């Protein structure tokens, strides 16, 4: 039985400028112990989709317009707030990008970690304080005994982030939801934390939803990858399949926009002020859709060089991709491997413009 089942989750924000279609019909299941990497365009609904399942979006303007989120057999969306609050932080650990749920500036780090533990009745105050030092050590903060009594402003950005991670895993949750949890960290500390996560996963059978922009982190951590755009899942599948046998034009554009990381790549040395133009990264042409007025069809169609006429009209369902690994799903009316045969660089057809 899956640990978490998200069914047709749909979230709207009613703002002065119109209704924001933040999340539309998001459906997936997460198995116990599974690590799901969630990547996607900024504003694609990655954060809102997890915030809404935990009852953390401001209502109004936010509103759950439909769907269910079944965790251990119960729908989180209809659960009384008190029960949800107890699940949050205990069975579902959270590490958020959003300041709303971040550290309190007037409390010491020790107090905040201890509170996260004692508020769920898991330990005495004294034991929780000792545990706070242990947790800071676990997330790699040097001199944890000294640091634990400090206030958040006395920590660097990355140290604050690590304190948040300590709080997220304090209760050894079944599911950990991390939103850009290691983005602010140097790569050695990040690697250390990712190792810690893999450890906790093994030890506790903890499942994870790991939201990140870092395709390298996804490649190293996630069993499955889910790619979002315009409030929808564009592609989902085993990491290897999504990276090596990409089926969504958006994922393809994303991977192509990374700096060259091929082995043995020699970089040119550049001198400032040199007339020679330096190489640019591949961009995905165009801008993300205005989600108060999303395109009627595939949200990526206006920027997709492979879009067919149907893409502009009709939202494609998320289905098993043709001749792909089992569980490799794509929402596309076009066939990417086929399209790349005739247009390997994704050149925009001459006739196509902004108009859809």
């Amino acid at each position, binding site marked *: 039985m899956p640990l978490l089942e998200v069914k047709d989750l749909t979230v709207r924000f009613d*703002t002065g*400028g119109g209704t924001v279609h933040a999340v539309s019909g998001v459906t997936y299941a997460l198995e116990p112990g599974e690590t799901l990497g969630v*990547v996607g*365009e*900024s*504003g694609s609904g990655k*954060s809102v989709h997890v915030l809404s399942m935990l009852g953390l979006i401001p209502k109004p303007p936010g509103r759950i317009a439909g769907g269910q989120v079944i965790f251990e057999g119960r729908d989180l969306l209809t659960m009384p707030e008190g029960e949800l609050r107890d699940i949050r932080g205990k069975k579902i650990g959270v590490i958020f*990008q959003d*300041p709303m749920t971040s550290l309190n500036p007037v409390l010491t780090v020790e107090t905040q970690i201890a509170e996260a533990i004692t508020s769920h009745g898991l330990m005495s105050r004294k034991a929780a304080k000792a545990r706070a030092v242990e947790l800071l050590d676990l997330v790699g903060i*040097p001199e944890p005994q000294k640091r634990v009594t400090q206030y958040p402003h*006395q*920590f*660097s*950005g*990355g*140290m604050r982030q*690590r304190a948040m991670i300590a709080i997220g895993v304090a209760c050894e949750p079944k599911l950990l939801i991390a939103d850009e949890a290691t*983005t*602010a*960290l*140097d*790569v*050695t*500390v*990040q*690697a250390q934390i990712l190792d810690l996560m893999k450890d906790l996963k093994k030890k506790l059978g903890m499942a994870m939803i790991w939201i990140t*922009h*870092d*395709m*390298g*982190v*996804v*490649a*190293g951590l996630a069993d499955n990858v889910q790619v979002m755009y315009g409030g929808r899942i564009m592609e989902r599948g085993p*990491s*290897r399949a999504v*990276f*090596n046998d990409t089926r969504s034009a958006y994922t393809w*554009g*994303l991977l192509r*926009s*990374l*700096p*060259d*990381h091929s*082995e043995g790549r020699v*970089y040119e*040395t550049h001198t*400032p*002020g040199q007339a020679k*133009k*330096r*190489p*640019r*990264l*591949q*961009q*995905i042409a165009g*801008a993300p859709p*205005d989600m108060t007025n999303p395109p009627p069809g595939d949200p990526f169609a206006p920027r997709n060089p492979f879009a067919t006429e149907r893409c502009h009209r009709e939202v494609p369902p998320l289905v098993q991709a043709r001749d792909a690994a089992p569980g490799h799903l794509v929402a596309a009316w076009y066939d990417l491997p086929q399209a790349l045969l005739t247009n390997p660089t994704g050149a925009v057809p001459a006739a196509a413009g902004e108009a859809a």
Partner: protein
Amino acid sequence: MNAKAAPLLRVDGLTKHFHTSKNLFGKPTHTVKAVDGVSFEIGYGETLGLVGESGSGKSTTGRLILRLEEPTAGQVHFEGQEIGKLSSSQLSPIRKKLQVVFQDPFSSLNPRLRVGDSVGEPLQTHGLVSGGSDKRDKVAALFRQVGLDPKFMDRFPHQFSGGQRQRIGIARAIALGPKLIVADEPITALDVSIQAQIVNLFLDLQEELGMAYLFIAHDLGMVRHLCHRVAVMLRGRIVEMGSTEQVFANPQHPYTQALISAAPIPDPDREALRRRIPYDLVPPPPGAVLREVDPGHWALSAA
């Protein structure tokens, strides 16, 4: 360029200590040496990448350069002038040439200002707009430059996602056409495709306007792509500095080697094989000095 001419920025022995706790007599008992004798230069039109341990003093270095923080010791020279000696009125024209893009897109925008007004504010402060419609036009152009639809001008920061907010911050920073931008993790919060756009934008602005950057980042792939030179920080000190190629292809200091080996690669097959070089995070020994191992390539070693 004339070899004798002053560089755009010269930082000399920059030091910042924070006293985090005090005893009964008000004497500090615990001192964090956030920045501990850091020296480097940035030329006109040059990008220096600043990477390293979280908490190693990268942001503090940036804040000291911007004079958002008073140094405990050391100097900052901008276009040959020591800015620590300047009065606030003398500092004003320099502020125009010295801009910042912050790490945290949430705290860098005034939540009560429409984002178009936030972006236009520096233009107004420095009298660079002739009226309401001129301001709107200039702000709209800045919005387009950073890949935002100008019709978002009248919205408030909370109505944007993290990545969108960071783009607004960049629009604001480039409004005055600065000579140096201290960019403290400017692309950290952005999605990959927008990172590419912003990094390309940084390159465009540099080629068009000769802008220089102090680019603080954790994404070594991007640093390698964007920066002319790189400095690596550990515990308040620079442990290695050189051209991007020197540092990446031939890292000398064990911390640099560990850092580079820990950078994740966006390829599941190679990630499964990647081996990290461990580094026991010991602070550099007090007497250690930077030695030139190759022309322009410096690494810290015991005295």
